[in-house]
């Protein structure tokens, strides 16, 4: 038997894959893993890293110095998420439903205009709203005045009771375009025959939407919820811009992102603490991972079963 001809080693596959894999590994995967590792270490007096196991996590979760800040940040993060889920995503769905309807004139124009705030930097949006809500300029008060509601005006960003809600609503205002576009793409993807069939069966617009269209876009609902979750638990810029790194007043707008930044980077006289910062990043990692897994195994699995 002649010797089997061996294929030459496929070097071109290596050439194609190496740049992306190398850069992704060095500048994303390695830092993420190294950061998780760093959360298990502590710097001693000489500045050397010492392995301390889960001590940092224990300190973070239980000590009087750290725990109240952590739980406050987690609670605020969930409030932020709840407001996005209950305000941003329903408004996004409503706008998408309207924009997918044949009765609207100028759909492309509306879509483009409503998406505008989303493309702008959070820094610029944050400062703009700071000016608009400021009692000095009085814009918010004037606008309430048009409806005779002037007495309702408060400096919302400055009050402990309302700052977090105000921040959340600014963020909702900015990002409503994202769920709108995702829902719109899903709604436009529904075959016309399905809708026509339902109409012939006598279904009304309202009925068609909730009984036919909404169940068909459930996968998008899951994606939107997951994106919202990851985005909110990774948020930082808006609060840093409008409320500062101390997330005032009195930490009422402090979320994990700002807590992480202060701890690791330091602020004013407080020095940065990289290992404790890495520990907070570890907590954020676990929360985001839990959210993503819940989506992959809870939501998607269930949907697949329904389709079968």
């Amino acid at each position: 038997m002649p010797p089997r001809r061996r294929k030459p080693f496929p070097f071109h596959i290596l050439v194609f894959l190496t740049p992306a894999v190398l850069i992704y590994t060095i500048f994303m995967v390695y830092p993420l893993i190294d950061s998780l590792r760093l959360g298990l270490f502590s710097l001693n007096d000489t500045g050397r890293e010492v392995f301390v196991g889960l001590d940092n996590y224990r300190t973070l979760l239980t000590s009087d110095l750290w725990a109240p800040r952590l739980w406050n940040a987690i609670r605020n993060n969930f409030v932020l998420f709840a407001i996005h889920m209950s305000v941003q995503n329903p408004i996004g769905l409503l706008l998408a439903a309207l924009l997918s309807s044949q009765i609207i004139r100028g759909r492309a124009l509306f879509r483009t205009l409503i998406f505008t705030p989303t493309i702008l930097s959070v820094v610029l949006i944050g400062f703009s709203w700071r000016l608009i809500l400021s009692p000095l300029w009085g814009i918010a008060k004037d606008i309430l005045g048009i409806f005779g509601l002037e007495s309702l005006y408060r400096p919302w960003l400055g009050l402990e009771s309302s700052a977090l809600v105000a921040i959340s609503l600014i963020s909702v205002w900015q990002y409503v375009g994202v769920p709108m576009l995702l829902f719109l793409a899903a709604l436009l993807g529904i075959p016309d025959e399905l809708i026509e069939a339902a109409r012939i069966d006598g279904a009304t617009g309202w009925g068609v939407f909730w009984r036919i269209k909404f169940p068909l876009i459930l996968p998008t609902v899951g994606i939107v919820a997951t994106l919202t979750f990851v985005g909110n638990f990774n948020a930082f810029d808006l609060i840093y811009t409008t409320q500062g790194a101390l997330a005032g007043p009195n930490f009422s707008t402090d979320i994990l992102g700002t807590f992480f930044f202060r701890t690791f980077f330091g602020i004013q006289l407080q020095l940065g603490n990289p290992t404790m910062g890495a520990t907070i990043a570890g907590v954020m990692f676990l929360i985001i991972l839990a959210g993503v897994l819940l989506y992959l195994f809870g939501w998607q699995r269930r949907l697949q079963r329904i389709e079968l």
Partner: protein
Amino acid sequence: MTSRRGGNKRPPRGFGHWGQVVAAHAVLITYTVIALFPVLLVILNSFKSRRAIFRNPFELPNSSNFDTVGYQTVFEGANFLLYFRNSLIVTIVALLLILLVSSMAAFALAEYDFPGNALMGLYLAVGIMIPIRLGTVSILRLLVGIELVDTLMGLILVYLASGIPLAVFILTQFMATVPQALKDAARIDGASEYRIYALVLPLIRPALGTVAVFNMIPIWNDLWFPLILTGTERAKTVILGAQIFLGQYISDWNAVLASLTLAMLPVVILYIVFSRQLIRGLTSGAVK
């Protein structure tokens, strides 16, 4: 099928229908006003005198209230042209590199059936859902170690790494739709594998556009990494420069409004020009 209306596809259009049409437009117009009003308010007032900003904030700029003192302060007080240059370099170079290395990897994943292909795809996809910010502590140490902190290159590498996962994921799906016969024909003509990659690339231009759109806005608008990875003027981006300037000049309303406008306008103008492609790119990416 019992309540079938003979031949009538839609319910008859009566008064209720027109009520619906008007109400739907009213909702959209109201929301559009809510979305644009704050942005317009900032831009319009940046061209007015301090007195006019406070006295008549809703008035359009006109000959009696026009004033560009804010812009003068901005150009004297901050290095905005340098920041613009930095932001442009970081965004464009990072985008081009994301497109290049991701399309190469996507080509390999879609074209060749090698052992570990699925695993490699999964490895690259994990980064889609995990934000790179969580690795910031180690990224800073790493860049300090290789002396890339406070450089545009450092920022580019970080954005490049974080852009790769989604780019590879989207591009692999599109690469897979390129007809096999086309590539095989080229192979028979003796084209190398690299030549075939170059042949396929123009065929997935819409997908490359989608990927560019997905990455461009977040890179240009990012505050986090410039804040942490740059210290001096030389590597500051527009957004970080604006953030610092705004913090310093917060009581000078003309300067604040002018700097907000300066930072917004280029993006808004680009958006007006490219909005059609951008939104189409976002929606087509979303369907995938």
